[in-house]
């Protein structure tokens, strides 16, 4: 069973204020998540430029695409040998097209699927509030920046104080 969320969350109308809070909390070693209507480099930098595991998945899938793109035409050419004038039975330059297309196809598909799967897996690690107040708050897809801090109740006052110093619009404690 998933552990319930314990911590504080707040919504910010200003990006610079939200980024300052994020950077301060990160440097204090707090476990936090950030929500925003669009990706912003300010928040990414404030979070310490975390890296995604996604390129490795893309690399493996694209490699598999290249392998199948060559292996399948080579196998079919050998399976039913069809000599045409002096042309080689296994025509590597011609099969390069298939290799390229399958590399793009498998690499692209794996990338797209991974974007959503990895996002879901991370939700188990970086829990978000489950309260009706959070679920009914719809402005993180509109014009507000959210900072969610997972912390013990003893730290809540300090986190809330920091948020209030930086123009938080709404702050909620959930324990």
């Amino acid at each position: 069973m998933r552990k319930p969320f314990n911590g504080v969350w707040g919504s910010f109308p200003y990006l610079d204020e939200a980024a300052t809070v994020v950077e301060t909390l990160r440097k204090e070693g707090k476990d936090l998540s950030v929500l925003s209507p669009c990706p912003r480099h300010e928040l990414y930098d404030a979070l310490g430029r975390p890296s995604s595991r996604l390129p490795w998945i893309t690399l493996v899938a694209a490699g598999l695409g290249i392998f199948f793109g060559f292996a399948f035409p080579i196998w079919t050419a050998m399976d039913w040998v069809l000599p045409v004038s002096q042309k080689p039975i296994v025509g590597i330059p011609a099969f390069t097209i298939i290799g390229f297309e399958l590399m793009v196809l498998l690499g692209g598909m794996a990338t797209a699927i991974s974007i959503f799967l990895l996002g879901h897996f991370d939700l188990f690690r970086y829990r978000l509030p489950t309260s009706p107040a959070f679920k009914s708050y719809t402005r993180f897809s509109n014009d507000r920046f959210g900072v969610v801090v997972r912390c013990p109740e003893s730290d809540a006052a300090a986190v809330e104080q920091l948020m209030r110093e930086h123009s938080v619009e709404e702050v909620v404690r959930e324990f």
Partner: protein
Amino acid sequence: MSAEAITVTYADVNKDILETLERPKPAFFLMLIGSVTALLIGAVSWAIQIDVGLGLSGINHPIGWGVYITNFVFWIGIGHAGTLISAVFFLTRAPWRAPVYRAAEAMTVFAVMTAGLFPLLHVGRVWYAYWLIPYPNQRLLWVNFKSPLLWDVFAVSTYLTISVTFFVVGLVPDLSAMRDNAKGLRKLMYTMLTMGWNNSYQQWMHYARGYLLLAAFATPLVFSVHSIVSWDFAMSLVPGWHTTIFAPYFVAGAIFSGLAMVITICVPLRVIFGFHHYITDHVLQSMAKVILFTSVIVGYAYATEFFIAYYSGVPFERALFYFRPFGEPGSLAPVADAGSFGFPQIAFFLMVFCNVIAPLPLWRLKIRHNAIALFIISILINIGMWFERFNIVVSSLQRDFNPANWGAYIPTPVELGITLGSFGFFFTLFTLFTRAMPSLAIAEVKESLPPPYKHPDQDHVPWREFATERTEDHNHA
């Protein structure tokens, strides 16, 4: 973004774009009626062709590829602009792409879907079209992987899949904005479509990296797909087709026609939905510049084809390139209608006028800033590019090596009906799209705006320096 857009806030973006999904305007119904009518004409024409047979089309020996393959190449070309804008201009960080990329990407998906219909139409017995796919069968026969036609199957299906993927991935954050704005059944539907998207940075991080990788994959795909389509022709020995210039010539033509179609759909979108703050004159002007650039490449390619036909000394090439503009030379009177000036010649001059002459006014800034002029020029380019495809496909087959093997081709009513139907199919899908999904990419438009800062002048915070540079870039652009 131009100075006009700086006053737009994140909340305005949501409001302006989501508002377009509310009560439909009369223009929507007019557009839908027109496009569905064209679609029905196409559907009836196809039904008649299936019932009577492929003989109803003008395709016959020696012209085995007619209007259907012309349409296929034309629509694949139209489909190029979406991925060009969403992938290539994403990698090159073109700041004007954000407002038009969603419409262009939708256009790509629908254009490639339309193009995909034509190989099925062309084979006649559409129920055997699955023979194109390599599948295990009892006779252990496999498709010929050395054939450009099979490369095309792989190229076009990969292009369609990646275009749809790109489209869907870009749409998910916007669907979350729609979900948060909706109630009842619509909210439930959007919740399912967003696949758990919650705008958290854990998701944005994977999204940004994944989108970059998708763009990196799609960029060579843009250039490869139309190169491979061109090899359907260039790998043969037919005069007019067997030439190494075809790949770059086709790619430039595809970008040219695709961007013209983007302008054709974006100018009405701007007027109907009042998107003047987003699809600004600067955005239209930037597209016009790329159109002008590719128009020059296309014009140069036309000239090169003629020069090489002359310079090669090959009589068959010379004869074909004389035939395209002027018809038969007098010396061929015994075997052909000498001096005839028919449909192929009209198609040739229409192509040259629409693709080389008509875009010339775009050299003037005043014209590039005039949406009506751009709209008219873009329609002329669409017409010109259709005739360019027609010229390449049909006129070469009309005149091959042996005069005894020459023939004439005029599209039949069924072929014209299906061609009209393809435009109906495309515009029906696009019109429905404008009602069902945001026509502008909400998250990307926000990303291109200056963000809401409380202290815009403070510059000692490390992340601020980078952000300020980016904002200045946008303002200058």
